[in-house]
């Protein structure tokens, strides 16, 4: 891809300073920074919660927290990590990078963008406030149903459920607004010459994600609205005693919940091939095959939801349909894996921190994908359902596949965003500590899960003691090693070796034609893609 030179006009640097800059900003980079900062803070909050969980599970018996508080920690940890850490991180990258990658001056709807972000902090407060209120004797704590809100537990739960329902509504509105903005930006704001099939892969990943969000978030919102009316307005949508159907809630929830996995992963699948081509110093392999595979996965994502509750009971043809359709996702995913590996094949590879995270990501996310195939098997799932095997599987998918991917993206784009190089030494240390401690935490969970240890229970049988101890030690190392990540980001933002415009020798695309950091107003003259 070749481009024209980009001019810059300093008159556009005018903007409010101090807190007003952040409250009123419509600049895509400012909003991206706020999303990423918010995500990092919530990642630490959600991480602290899980450290309390792992401390409790260090030994069998009840030591530190009572079972009800344990349930609250489990539910809020998941809600925070999914809605307040992973999703905002991907949205932060979208805000920062999509306009730069497609040669647009900003997002298409900048005010909507600001509104979308500022709905997030109140949602995070709604999720965590019940913990604090309970300390003062108000209410009975946060939502204790797990992140899935299953009735009848959620119909009978305390005020934490109401807080979580309102939080999910706000988060949903924020996500839908963000998605609309991204779709409109990608359709209307691309530089002349950038056809859809010339868009960077990250833009493709996000375009499909945005459509998935618009298609599924309203269904989740509908389900939790009905839950709210069941709780307070005398309806019985999901209450069997009143003629309702609790399984219907599971269908509605997972119609959103399963695509949500791909909503978290598709943006990562977008920038991972870009990192691979940069550090392999050769063009991405199979661009078209990757785009079609992303679409295929996006389409399959919305028709496989019921594999999350095979054991709830459904007709055999339905079981078979959901099993085979779920397994079919592995085909386009295998195409993606092939393209990622082939991009590296015979490349002139170097292993800076983003590439280390990416290669580690491919291996660990691969394990997440393969164990998903095991769970998709109806006969096998009856054994593994609700066990620690599931917990290990989805952490390989969402921590390794999601958060480690986000870390790769952070190290990749941080010099572009801040204008400084981060410490490679600390970055590599962070990678190795994360990769080793992550496996130390979750490999034992496969073992105890296969042996029958149920999830979401604060106590366990004596035979699981050793593996749980190892898992807890791994979790604490994993948690502590994230402090290196925070330190590296903060010190990079504050100063350090100046980054060049291209930053990485093999980097390609419009974002690398701008200086590091890019000017406040990115493109004053529209680039032309040839």
């Amino acid at each position, binding site marked *: 891809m070749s481009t024209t030179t980009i001019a810059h006009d300093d008159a556009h640097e005018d903007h409010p300073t101090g807190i007003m800059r952040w409250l009123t900003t419509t600049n895509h980079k400012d909003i991206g920074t706020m999303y990423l900062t918010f995500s990092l803070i919530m990642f630490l909050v959600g991480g602290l919660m899980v450290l309390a969980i792992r401390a409790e599970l260090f030994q069998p018996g009840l030591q530190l927290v009572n079972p009800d508080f344990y349930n609250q920690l489990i539910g809020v940890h998941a809600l925070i990590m999914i809605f307040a850490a992973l999703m905002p991180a991907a949205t932060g990258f979208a805000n920062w990078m999509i306009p730069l990658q497609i040669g647009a001056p900003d997002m*298409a*709807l900048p005010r*909507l963008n600001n509104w979308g972000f500022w709905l997030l902090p109140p949602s995070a407060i709604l999720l965590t406030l019940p913990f604090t209120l309970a300390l003062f004797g108000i209410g009975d704590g946060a939502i204790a149903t797990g992140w899935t809100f299953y009735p009848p537990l959620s119909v009978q739960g305390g005020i934490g459920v109401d807080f979580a329902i309102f939080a999910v509504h706000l988060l949903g509105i924020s996500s*839908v*607004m963000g*998605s*609309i*903005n991204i*779709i*409109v930006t990608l*359709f*209307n*704001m691309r530089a002349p010459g950038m056809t859809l099939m010339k868009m960077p892969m990250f833009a493709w990943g996000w375009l499909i994600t945005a459509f998935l969000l*618009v*298609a599924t*978030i*309203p*269904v989740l*919102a*509908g*389900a939790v*609205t*009905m839950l709210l009316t069941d709780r307070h307005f005398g309806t019985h*949508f999901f209450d069997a005693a009143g003629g309702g*159907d609790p399984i*219907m809630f599971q269908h*509605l929830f997972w119609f959103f919940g399963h695509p949500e996995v791909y909503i978290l992963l598709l943006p990562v699948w977008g920038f991972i091939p870009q990192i691979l081509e940069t550090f392999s110093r050769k063009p991405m392999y199979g661009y078209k095959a990757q785009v079609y595979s992303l679409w295929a996965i996006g389409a399959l994502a919305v028709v496989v939801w019921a594999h999350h509750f095979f054991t709830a009971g459904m007709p055999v043809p339905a079981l078979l349909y959901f099993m085979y359709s779920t397994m079919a996702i592995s085909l386009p995913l295998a195409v993606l894996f092939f393209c990622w590996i082939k991009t590296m094949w015979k490349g002139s590879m170097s292993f800076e921190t983003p590439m280390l995270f990416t290669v580690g990501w491919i291996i660990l996310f691969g394990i997440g994908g393969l164990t998903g195939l095991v769970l998709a098997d109806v006969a096998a799932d009856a054994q593994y359902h609700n066990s620690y095997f599931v917990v290990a599987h989805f952490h390989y998918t969402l921590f390794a596949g999601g958060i480690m991917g986000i870390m790769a993206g952070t190290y990749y784009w941080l010099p572009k965003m801040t204008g400084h190089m981060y410490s490679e030494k600390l970055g590599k240390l962070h990678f190795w500590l994360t990769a080793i401690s992550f496996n130390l935490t979750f490999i034992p969970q496969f073992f105890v899960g296969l042996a029958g240890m149920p999830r979401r229970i604060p106590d366990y049988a004596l035979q699981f003691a050793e593996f749980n101890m190892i898992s807890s030690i791994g979790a604490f190392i994993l948690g502590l090693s994230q402090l290196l990540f925070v330190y590296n980001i903060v010190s990079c933002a504050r100063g350090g070796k100046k980054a060049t415009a291209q930053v990485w020798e093999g980097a390609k695309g419009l974002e690398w034609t701008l200086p590091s950091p890019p000017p406040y107003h990115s493109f004053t003259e529209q680039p032309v893609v040839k």
Partner: protein
Amino acid sequence: MEKDKQVVKKSSMRIAYILGGLAFAWYLLSMFTVLSH
């Protein structure tokens, strides 16, 4: 240039309203599905 910007803005708002409208209709429809269940 200014005219181009207006066209992009108008088209952007149109797409945004269509998508937003579809999302809201889908929200209502998902509840209607349960009512008729």
